[in-house]
């Protein structure tokens, strides 16, 4: 008998409160159906785009007769085409994602973010896909619409396990190749690896004209490094453990941390990524609200 799939990462109350905030893309999307996102294709929707001179062969039904009446010239009136959005998650499943308190590990936090955003996207008719950031790229769910597919996404999220070394960079490259059309790609990871290779992976996504958002999950303990006695640190990703006296190395630890943040910040700025550094003790509802409002042109200023 198959193990019951846990979906406790979904909180109806949170979903209800966030329902009012639309999930927008920062770039025009190419969708298969009509939706609420801008498309690079001009169409006959309600949103006016521009006037242009009539050329033979244009549909005469789109001539603006009022302008002809005033200027005696033929102009075609164009409108923005609205389409749907492809929302793809790349969730890091390396061993370090298991860090955190029981029930509130980094992977749990990632599930909540991904699950909530997936639900919101599906509700506004967008397609949702999921890729795992493991080395063997074991979870791969292409973006589709519909409640059944959403159920599959939730199931896949519930089955994610954190173990092994991080394969996020290779997963990003693979996902970039596999997602053929423009999409909003949300990466959820702790980025606990040498950040430099990440630069090329993100550039790869940007090259494919994807809108990329990255949730960088960190635990407060990792920042404070507040230990009062010698400690054996066991690597969650299976590497050799390390016995150290934190009082001796805490200064160097902070130096290493600072250097790391500098590099990460520089990569994110250079790659124009919607980057969010999150502490696990921060309620994910606030994080998502800030994320959604930051993407809404009307509320972006106040969100920042």
């Amino acid at each position: 008998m198959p193990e019951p799939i846990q979906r406790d990462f979904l909180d109806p109350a949170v979903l209800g409160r966030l329902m009012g905030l639309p999930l927008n893309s920062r770039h025009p999307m190419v969708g298969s159906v009509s939706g609420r996102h801008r498309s690079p294709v001009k169409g006959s929707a309600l949103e006016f785009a521009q006037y242009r001179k009539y050329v033979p062969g244009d549909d005469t039904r789109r001539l603006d007769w009022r302008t002809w009446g005033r200027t005696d010239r033929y102009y075609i009136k164009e409108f923005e085409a609205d389409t749907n959005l492809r929302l793809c998650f790349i969730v890091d499943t390396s061993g370090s994602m298991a860090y955190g308190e029981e029930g509130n590990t980094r992977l749990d936090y990632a599930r909540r973010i991904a699950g909530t955003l997936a639900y919101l996207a599906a509700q506004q008719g967008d397609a949702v896909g999921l890729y795992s950031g493991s080395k063997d790229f074991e979870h791969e769910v292409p973006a589709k619409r519909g409640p059944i597919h959403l159920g599959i996404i939730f199931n896949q999220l519930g089955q994610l396990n954190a173990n092994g070394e991080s394969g996020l960079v290779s997963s990003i490259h693979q996902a970039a190749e596999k997602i053929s059309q423009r999409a909003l790609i949300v990466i959820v990871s702790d980025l606990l690896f040498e950040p430099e290779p990440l630069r090329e992976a993100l550039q790869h996504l940007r090259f494919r004209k994807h809108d990329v958002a990255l949730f960088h999950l960190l635990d407060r303990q990792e920042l404070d490094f507040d230990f009062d006695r010698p400690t054996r640190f066991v690597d969650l990703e299976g590497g050799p453990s390390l016995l150290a006296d934190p009082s001796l190395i805490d200064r160097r630890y902070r130096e290493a941390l600072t250097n790391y943040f500098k590099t990460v910040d520089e990569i994110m700025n250079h790659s124009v990524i919607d980057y969010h550094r999150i502490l696990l003790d921060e309620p994910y509802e606030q994080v998502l609200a800030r994320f959604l409002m930051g993407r809404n042109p009307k509320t972006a200023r106040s969100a920042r």
Partner: protein
Amino acid sequence: MSFLQPLLLAGLPLALLPLIIHLINRHRHRTVEWAAMLFLLDARKMNKGMARLRQILILSMRVLAVAMLIFAASRPLSGGILALTGGKADTVIVLLDRSASMEQQILETGESKRLAALDKLTDLLEKTGQSSEIVLIDSATLKPVVIDDSTNLAELPQTDATSTAADIPALLQIAIDYLVTNESGRTDIWVASDQRESDWKPASGRWQSLRTKLAAQKNVRLFLLNFPEASTSNYSIQASNVQRIQTPENLQLIFDLRVGREGLDEPLEEVTLPVEFIINGTRTVQEVTLIDREAVLQGHTISLGNSDERGWGQASLPADDNLRDNISYLVFDDPAPRKTVIVSDDPDTRDAIIAAAKAPVEIGATYDAIALDETAAAQVPWQETALLFWHAPLPSPDSTEAKLLTQHVKSGRTLIFLPPETSEVGESLFGFSWGKWQESSGTPLEVGWWRTESELLANTRNGAPLPLGDLKLSKTRFYTSESQPLLKLESGEPVISKLITDQLGPTAGNIYIWGTLPRTDHSTFATDGVAFFVMLHRALDPGVNSVSRAQSRDASEGTLPALNVIRSLSSPDQSPLHPDLNAGAYEVTPLRGDPLLFALNRPNSEDSAKTLTDEGIKSLLEGVDYRQISDELGSGSSLAAEVWRAFLLAMALALIVEAALCLPPKPGPESSPLHLSPPARQSS
């Protein structure tokens, strides 16, 4: 380094406590699952340089602080000037120079060099020698004495002031003998002296043997506590050649007086000193002016009362840096007959000697000379004989004659050996034996060198040399001996020598060897009689003192006859415990016979302020591991001082350094918490 509470040093391993706590702390680690290994590994890489060194330094400072605390609690001792005490010795031998020159003092405090040395050694022994056997050997008695209570060496009778001379080589020899006899283990030898050349005797042949023996003693450390500081104003006085003569008017006392000064820098100022004479209680004062380093009054005369045929007196100077050399004692009585005896079968030799010996030199003295055949040697009047010529084969050392000759010399008389006619080598006596005869082939043998500064052939008082250059020798006899040459041929062969008689005791007289005879077929001694006459009477003089009823002697142990009643004339109320070690006038009453008078004075050598240089000591002790501490009177420095304060200071310094190393680093801009906080949104 030694410690007053050495048991506390057992706690020294506690110094490792910080290290052990550190290791335990590391062992008590907890285990956590950790994701951010990236930063840990980076931090560890960065921590390998200065930070690791800092941590090692912190631990070292903690260990050092605990160790210093334990050291301080153990009350460490260190040399005040040098680190002298390198651990406890099983035996500490103190060799103390008790010579008169060690009484040089600071007038204000009365602290002499001897007392200063004793104070410092007492302090050292109190602090370091509780568990060591302490042996004192003083220069006056040369006897090792085991000291039970070292708390106040200065109160021991063996450390009192004396008027004697010191013999440092003899002290060292006795110390080495003690070490060998008692198997003393690890031993410290402390020599306390004023570094006077006269006491150290650098020319002595014993030094070579001492060097070898000291270098062979691996467990012996030699420390020289020297006080070479010369006095800035010290005058000395010495009376000699005391004679009582009868003039038509009255009795008179005639003596030579020497007043010297030392330690004063050139140019010397002319100074006039009042010299006080007290003769049989009558006091007179004579002013003596010193232009150079010394003034000599020859034949100084003091009139005596008609009843003062016998008595004692003193010549003294005002008090100065050394009270021991400010006074000289003299005694007088009826002059003793100056008797010379020659044991010889050779008439020519006998005649020449008798003629010279009977010729009077001093007014009022009685000169007598007799000759005896070799077979009648037993008839020598030993009690009256001041000078004995032995012109006969050397007697066997076990024979009666040899014993009588030895006793003759031991009692202070003079003995001169003349070469017997027989060509046999014969016996050996006093370490000497006759060799072969040597005859000149046509041309007489000529004198190549003679000792002009002292002894029989010394220049006259006005500095003129004796007419020995004209001496011709036709026949001389070789001899083998440990002796001091007085006259040598051009070929370097000694003709006249003085035997070394140290082994015969401090009162021993002189033994001379004359390798030729006063006969015309041997030498021109008798025909050019001046030198011969002078030699004979110079040899006679010291011997006469020994047969006199009033004798002047150098203070030294055994110088006064034993088994007699001794009464101090100069200090009747404070009769010293060891009268023969202290200058003074004494009356010695033998069991039989009349009382004798003795004037004991410090040896003349004690008036010489010449000190041995450090280089001189270095060459004397070449190959011997020794440490020299040159101290000064009133320096107040200690040979061993408690240095716990230094250790506490070191501990405090270690703790301060540790605290400084433990201070958290100043937060730089790179480690600002702002960078650690997640930004609300980094980019859009």
